[in-house]
């Protein structure tokens, strides 16, 4: 276990030495932002809207006491969405989509000698291939978290008002009531950290693939599993640190 962590840290160090020109990274960064960020908007939107809706319906169903005001429902939807769902839950979903994609791509490049071809040309393959993915993840994950947060709250609003659980006025009041702007900041910080973990752990798994197609599949599975575990551990540590 310790040797794997050590190799992971050495791998991270390798990303920042013998770098290529800014122009090379810029072009790859834009490509990766599209592949990692823009192509994930749809799944993030779907998950966010439905989770927001489910939280609203479940909260209302479990808050049956007449002494609790109805606007507490949207209050809970807001805080759950900002603090956990828009960052942690979304990143667990993205670990599956983005993580497996990164590990699969790099694993295939490894076993088909494409990475060797880069090395033979004197290019630092780890830096050339992984650094743009890392930067794109750290840049796009917070944007996805913001979209996810907004759509989660919107999902709760739609589910609550369309089913008659809560009036639009109560929902808006609950959203505004005792709002802590720092919670948005927490969500963004979490998304940055999770973006870093998912992209680097998945790249590490893919880059170190040996063998054939079977091993590429195993690398993808390991990438998702390890990324999810790392996200959950980091989530706990950040919760302790930031709240």
């Amino acid at each position, binding site marked *: 276990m310790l040797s794997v962590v050590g190799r992971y840290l050495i791998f991270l160090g390798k990303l920042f030495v013998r770098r290529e020109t800014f122009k090379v990274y810029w072009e790859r960064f834009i490509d990766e932002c599209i592949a990692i960020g823009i192509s994930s908007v749809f799944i993030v939107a779907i998950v966010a809207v439905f989770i927001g809706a489910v939280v609203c319906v479940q909260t209302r169903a479990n808050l049956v006491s007449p002494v609790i005001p109805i606007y507490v429902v949207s209050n809970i939807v807001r805080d759950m969405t900002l603090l956990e769902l828009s960052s942690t839950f979304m990143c667990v979903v993205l670990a599956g989509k983005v993580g497996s994609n990164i590990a699969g791509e790099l694993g295939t490049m490894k076993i*088909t000698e*494409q990475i060797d*071809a880069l090395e033979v*040309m*004197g290019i630092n393959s780890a830096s050339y291939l992984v650094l743009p993915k890392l930067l794109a993840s750290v840049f796009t994950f917070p944007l996805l978290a913001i979209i996810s947060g907004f759509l989660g709250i919107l999902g709760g609003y739609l589910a609550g008002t369309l089913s008659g659980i809560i009036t639009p006025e109560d929902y808006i009041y609950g959203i505004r009531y005792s709002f802590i702007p720092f919670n948005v900041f927490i969500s963004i910080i979490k998304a940055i950290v999770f973006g870093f973990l998912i992209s680097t752990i998945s790249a590490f798994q893919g880059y170190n693939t040996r063998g054939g197609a079977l091993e590429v599949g195993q690398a993808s599975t390991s990438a998702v599993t390890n990324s999810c575990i790392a996200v959950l551990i980091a989530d706990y540590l950040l919760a302790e640190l930031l709240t």
Partner: protein
Amino acid sequence: MIEIKNISKSFNGRQVLDNVSGVFKKGETSLVIGASGTGKSVLLKCMLDLVRPEAGTTLYDGRDFYVGDEEDKKDIRREMGVLFQGGALFDSKTVHENVQFPLDMLTKMGEGEKKDRVEFCLHRVGLDGTGSRMPSEISGGMKKRVGIARAIVMNPKYLFCDEPNSGLDPLTSIKIDELIKEITDEFDITTVVITHDMNSVLSIGDNIMFLYKGKKLWEGNSQTILGDTVPELEEFVFCNKALSLMRAGK
């Protein structure tokens, strides 16, 4: 000229290369032959420093590849062209972009100059008009040709080919062999080919090194290989039905 001196390498305690030495001369097509698992590809990877040997050294025109800083090494790498077994083309790039890639990364050439150079190399390997196709849209033989075009685009002094005939039909194999030989002669480069294809051995082998269980067992050329009596070499060479019949005078 490339000189390898006393290269040894083992994996998990298993000796894969044992004290292998040799010289690959400029303007010659040198072949490293042997059965599967004898360490041919590992030797190539050691020469390219993709795998660092436990002992020994590789000299490129007298320059030790394993010492010196990254910039020195990069200078030598710029003089290398490598054709990998499966072509190792970048899946996300077109044929033209694949060939142009080393120019993009390693030179400051203008776009027009790069385009001309890529078109020249594609023409040289007989692939005019295929630049816009993706690697997934071309045949195995064409992939090898694109791999050769990419390998020569930087005007290398050293060309390495790892089993250039694997997975190809006999006719295409012969064409690839001829192309490698022509390029070696035309550009006067040092070419090292890893192969176990006897057609290649007999048709393009200016200099041949036979590896057996990680050791260099024999060295010669395409004229001397059929007459030699080293048992392991004989077994390797005459396992080919046509050659064994020829030897028996049939």
